[in-house]
């Protein structure tokens, strides 16, 4: 297992190098001059040139890239934001807890809604419950997130006055954003749970369990669910990974100081170091989530467990 984890982490290296290079190239060739953006519409040429010099933007591409890699590798320094002058790492790390909380809560909501609904839907395939659950789930997927968020604010903050409308520092603040993310993710999880369960309950070993005289609820929970869990874990992990990259729209609607908005703002401001660092961070968290998902597989499925040895 340790070896396996180590190998996986090793595989991160080419991805990190690739991501770094590609982002660097992309940012370099994307129109929009960080100096001009920072100085705004009123900046004289001389000042722009001065700032470009200061930021090292006048150097050729490979010199800039080389400098970045050198600093990152030798000094473990991924630079400071052009705009705020803060260390990039610090900026990301201060933003990350909100994003993590939002992602975790959203996924939690989604799992709590999605898995039971999916199970019931599958065991009662084509029943009224199944149909209604599927329609609701589909509506959940279909509703644009930002719209749902705004509606949530209007209903729960403005008309009912139950919940605060924005910000993210007390549990009351977490509810709406988590629900916004949770419901749309729940839809995906419901559907995955349902189809995965449907597949599993047709398996021979479920028939074996029934032939032992096992009660239906136990057949479902003990025998079917655990087998159906792999694809469910996969989507949960995938969604969680995406959310860790920042749910930009939800973040901006609820004024959550998360990674997603930092990224968008930095991209718009051509704050290269932050973008670069942010993408790396996201790539790495994503890989970690994948790794955790794979380790979870091993917990759930002994066949996979034995492969990792």
């Amino acid at each position, binding site marked *: 297992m340790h070896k396996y984890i180590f190998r996986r982490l090793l595989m991160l290296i*080419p*991805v990190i190098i*690739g*991501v770094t290079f*590609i*982002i660097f190239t*992309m*940012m370099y*060739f*994307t*129109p*929009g001059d960080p100096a001009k953006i920072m100085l705004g519409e009123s900046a004289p040429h001389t000042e722009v040139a001065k700032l470009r010099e200061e930021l090292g933007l006048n150097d050729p591409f490979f010199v800039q890239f080389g400098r970045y890699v050198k600093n990152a590798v030798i000094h473990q320094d991924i630079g400071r934001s052009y705009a705020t002058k803060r260390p990039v790492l610090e900026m990301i790390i201060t933003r990350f807890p909100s994003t993590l909380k939002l992602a975790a809560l959203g996924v939690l909501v989604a799992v709590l809604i999605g898995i039971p609904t999916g199970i019931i839907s599958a065991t009662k395939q084509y029943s009224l419950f199944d*149909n209604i659950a*599927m329609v609701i789930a*589909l*509506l959940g*997927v*279909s*509703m*644009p*997130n*930002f*719209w749902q968020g*705004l509606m949530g604010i*209007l209903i729960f903050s*403005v008309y009912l006055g139950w919940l605060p409308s924005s910000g993210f520092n007390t549990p009351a603040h977490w509810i709406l954003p988590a629900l916004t993310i949770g419901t749309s993710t729940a839809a995906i999880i419901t*559907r995955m749970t349902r*189809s995965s369960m*449907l*597949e599993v309950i*047709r398996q021979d070993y479920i028939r074996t369990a029934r032939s032992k005289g096992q009660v239906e609820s136990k057949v479902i929970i003990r025998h079917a669910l655990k087998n159906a869990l792999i694809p469910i874990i996969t989507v949960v992990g995938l969604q969680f990974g995406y959310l860790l*990259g*920042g749910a*930009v*729209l939800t973040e*901006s609607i609820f004024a959550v100081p998360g990674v997603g908005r930092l*990224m*968008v703002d930095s*991209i*718009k401001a051509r704050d290269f170091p932050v*973008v670069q660092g*942010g*993408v790396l961070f*996201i*790539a790495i968290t*994503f890989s970690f989530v994948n790794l955790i998902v794979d380790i979870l597989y091993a917990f759930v499925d002994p066949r996979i467990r034995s492969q990792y040895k």
Partner: protein
Amino acid sequence: MTDQLNVNMSNEDIKKKSTKKRSQYLEVWRRLKQNKSAMVGLLIIIILILSAILAPFIAPYGIDDQDLLNTLQTPSKDHWMGTDNFGRDIFSRIVYGSIISLQVGFISVGIAMIVGGSLGAIAGYYGGKLDNLIMRMMDILLAIPSILLAISIVAALGHGLKNVMIAVGISSIPSYARIVRASVLTLKDQEFVEAARAVGTNNTRIILKHIIPNSMAPIIVQATLGVAGAILSAAGLSFIGLGIQLPTPEWGAMLSSGRQFIRDYPHMTAFPGLAIMITIFGLNLLGDGLRDALDPRLKN
């Protein structure tokens, strides 16, 4: 010499079968037809496509008939869905918008499917280093936030339908590559592929003729769902100001420009929101139905 008898036997049987459906796709269609919700989905999509084609005949007004004296009217007889902040008829814009949204959906999925599909097929079929290289590239692409991709593309190529489609398309390449690769991996060891090789078929033909057609099922499903996703992504891009050229009536852009009026004039967001929802709903119903119809194990 051979047991000719067999051939003549159960003729009725064969006749019945051969007058039945010819291809597997027809078989799938037959199964799909029995799925009511999939048919509802299909109906929605057909209506959308029709309204997209017939927009000039359906829409009572043009897309950019501004009337600054009659802005933000709530739904009425003249304007079924009211007017927007420029006094334009929202219903007409939604009808015209279906062309745009469907275009965004289908073309960006098309881009992703062709590029991603080819990469996935190559990676899966040839395996080894090439596979590793392509899939690591996909990992990298996956790591790049789609918004960054979109901003870069939009910044480089400008706003507009085409570029939004490219942006959305590129960012979903990896998922198609993965799906195709996975199904190619299972297919390439199938005996019929080996049989093709045994009679001298070359790799290109094997991929094109024997593997791709058989991996269509998951791709089709992913594509229907992907069209929905693409429409939502485009709407999301509009929301952060990276949408489509004005005054093109793209639903996402309509939704996001109505956002400032959401409290007083919710109809400005409600109708485009609803249009998006219904479309995606339809596509999802269809996609789910296709998944069931294409998967013989789920058949009963």
